[in-house]
């Protein structure tokens, strides 16, 4: 008992002495550095396990001929990349993806900005419109895709019924090669506009109302003048962020294609992620799929950097 009683006390003394003795040896900036490391380490571990390692594995696999489920794997050099250059499908899907992104990004951004300014300036029902516009963002894309499939059905869909009522010919939105990509883009815009709207609303909140007052006194009091003089320039940083986020989101299109068209008709809606999925998980060509992924990731990286640089130059940061 006495030993038990005495040991914590002596422990404390030892620790206290060690602490007191150790303190002059460790300068404050060193202990600060240690604390800093303590904060960073969990991130570094998680980032390594979930991002860095899988990326490295994909890069390595892109140089092999591994097929999903096969026990043997051998080095294939640049064979996968050569196939990528000569193959027709990745080229089609890359073109489709770029076209899709070019439709989705600008319209989502402009529509979101318009909605944000509109909702923010209306006194009535601001909360309602905000929630209504944000609803597509929080709902599951695949579930919404099914709703869209019904809406756009060639014979049963209400959209075609409306067209017929208006005296216009019915359209096969999802099975017409010329219409399928714009249709998918339309669904994405419907989904993304609420998202960009919320981001722009946050940006609008940060604009001081005194600037609008100053603009009104200086003579810029019409809606367009206010928009060009104050709103748009001060939303610059938000705009850069939103455009890049939208580019990345639209390049990553997959769910609607997988749920609605399966890349058809005749590969008219085949997009890069869908090609990667098909090659890797339907044809088991993991090596080849990895090579496409690597090129895709590099492309996104370059795209992000270039667009950021281009836009950043003309943007004001406070």
């Amino acid at each position, binding site marked *: 008992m006495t030993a038990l009683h005495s040991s914590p006390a002596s422990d404390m003394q030892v620790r206290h002495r060690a602490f007191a003795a150790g303190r002059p040896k460790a300068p404050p900036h060193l202990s600060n550095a240690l604390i800093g490391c303590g904060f960073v380490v969990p991130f570094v571990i998680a980032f390594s396990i979930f991002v860095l390692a899988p990326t490295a594995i994909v890069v390595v696999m892109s140089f092999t001929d591994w097929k999903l489920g096969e026990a043997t794997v051998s080095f294939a050099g640049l064979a996968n990349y050569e196939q990528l250059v000569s193959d027709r499908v990745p080229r089609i899907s890359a073109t489709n993806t770029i076209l899709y992104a070019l439709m989705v990004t600008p319209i989502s951004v402009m529509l979101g900005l318009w909605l944000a300014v509109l909702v923010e300036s209306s006194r009535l029902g601001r909360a309602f419109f905000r929630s209504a516009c944000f609803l597509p963002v929080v709902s599951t894309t695949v579930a919404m895709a099914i709703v869209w499939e019904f809406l756009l059905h060639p014979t049963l869909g209400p959209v075609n019924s409306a067209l017929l009522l208006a005296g216009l010919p019915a359209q096969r939105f999802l099975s017409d090669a010329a219409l399928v990509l714009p249709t998918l883009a339309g669904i994405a815009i419907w989904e993304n506009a609420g998202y960009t709207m919320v981001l722009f609303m946050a940006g609008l909140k940060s604009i*001081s109302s005194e*600037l609008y007052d*100053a*603009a*009104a*006194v200086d*003579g*810029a009091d019409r809606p367009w003048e206010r928009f060009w003089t104050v709103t748009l320039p001060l939303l*610059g940083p938000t705009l850069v962020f939103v455009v890049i986020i939208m580019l990345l989101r639209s390049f990553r299109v997959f769910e609607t294609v997988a749920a609605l068209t399966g890349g058809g008709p005749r590969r008219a809606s085949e997009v890069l992620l869908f090609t990667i999925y098909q090659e890797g998980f339907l044809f088991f060509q993991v090596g080849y799929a990895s090579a496409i992924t690597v090129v895709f990731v590099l492309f996104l990286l370059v795209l992000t950097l270039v667009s950021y640089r281009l836009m950043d130059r003309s943007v*004001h940061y406070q």
Partner: protein
Amino acid sequence: MAHIEILNLEKSFGDTRVLRGIDLSIAPGEFVAILGPSGCGKSTLLRIVAGLETHDDGHVLMDGQVVDAMAPKQRDVAVVFQSYALYPHMTVAQNLSLPLVMRDLTRVERLPFVRHVSGRVKHVRKAIRESVERAAAQVEIASLLDRKPRQLSGGQRQRVALARALIRQPKLFLLDEPLSNLDATLRASTRAEIVQLQRKLGTTAIYVTHDQTEAMTMADRIAIMIEGQIVQIGTAREIYHRPSDVRAALFIGSPKMNLFEGVVERGCVRLTATGSIVARTAAAHDGPVQIGIRPEHIALAAGRDEGVPGATMDALPVVVTHQEFLGSEALTHVSLTGAQAGTEAVVRVDSEAIDRLDVGQQAAVRFHPDKLHVFGDDGKRLALVPSQEPSEPGDAIPLNLQASDDSATQLAGV
């Protein structure tokens, strides 16, 4: 230069009445400060005059013309905002030229390439550039024209805001606490510069502030605004020496006026703490009053029985609670000890005088009888009757023992 008239202005935000019947007339070229605590409605008043806010009732007139329905740009006013409200994405030159660009060019002419096509636009742009340089020179920021606001110090931003206000040569300057974000030294020098600039331009100015020093040093007249009402309008001297309302009395003067409880009985103002009569009033109603005296109109003597000769018996017994040495003067905080114990007062004393007193020491104070202010139950100033002959000699005390001596240090007993 504009003659501004504000007639019975009313404004409510929801259930809160922000402005309660404001009446104010400002002569052409006059510099009027609207002084009041935060939340008194002074900024709202300024915004209504600018046209940035609508009002519920009443009128704003500029040169006799009702401008209630006019947009800010039609009123030809310029505003200097508290945060300066410079456009952060524009250079100083662009900030200054915006009011002129908006006024002098049409929507099409404002487009960036038009200046290369139209001779008129080129000419106007050149004139604007010259105005910008002139305005910048006036406030000494000519070397900063190509900088963005974020590259400027607080004082420089403030100058840009001033230049943007004066570049259009408006009829009226509206300044909303323009100095509150500057440090003390800069504030003092900018104060003088703004006044000089305003005098030189001769433009009518309304200056909103909560800082009595700014209002007193800059303005021709001060309007004290409290809880949505203007309680007094006048020069700094008038308000300091003859405050018409206890709230105005408390707001002007630092440290603020001391207040003591009193009562009016049949025309005699009696100090509750001593029971003695300190003044006579013509006020008809009997009832409680507040007796005010500025810190410099109180004499302080160490010990209950020392002090100004001939007046010891009526001195208010106090205890020294705190002393502040300010260099040229000193402030002694005291607390009454007899009846009304705990009532605090501040006395302005000679800076050497504080060495003669210690915290905790017993002392006595006396008021300068001609410097008393008496406020009725409603806070309004009561007119006092010259105090030579109290109405009830048996009850009263001689008030002006040293009346023959003009020296402010010679004070009479209470």
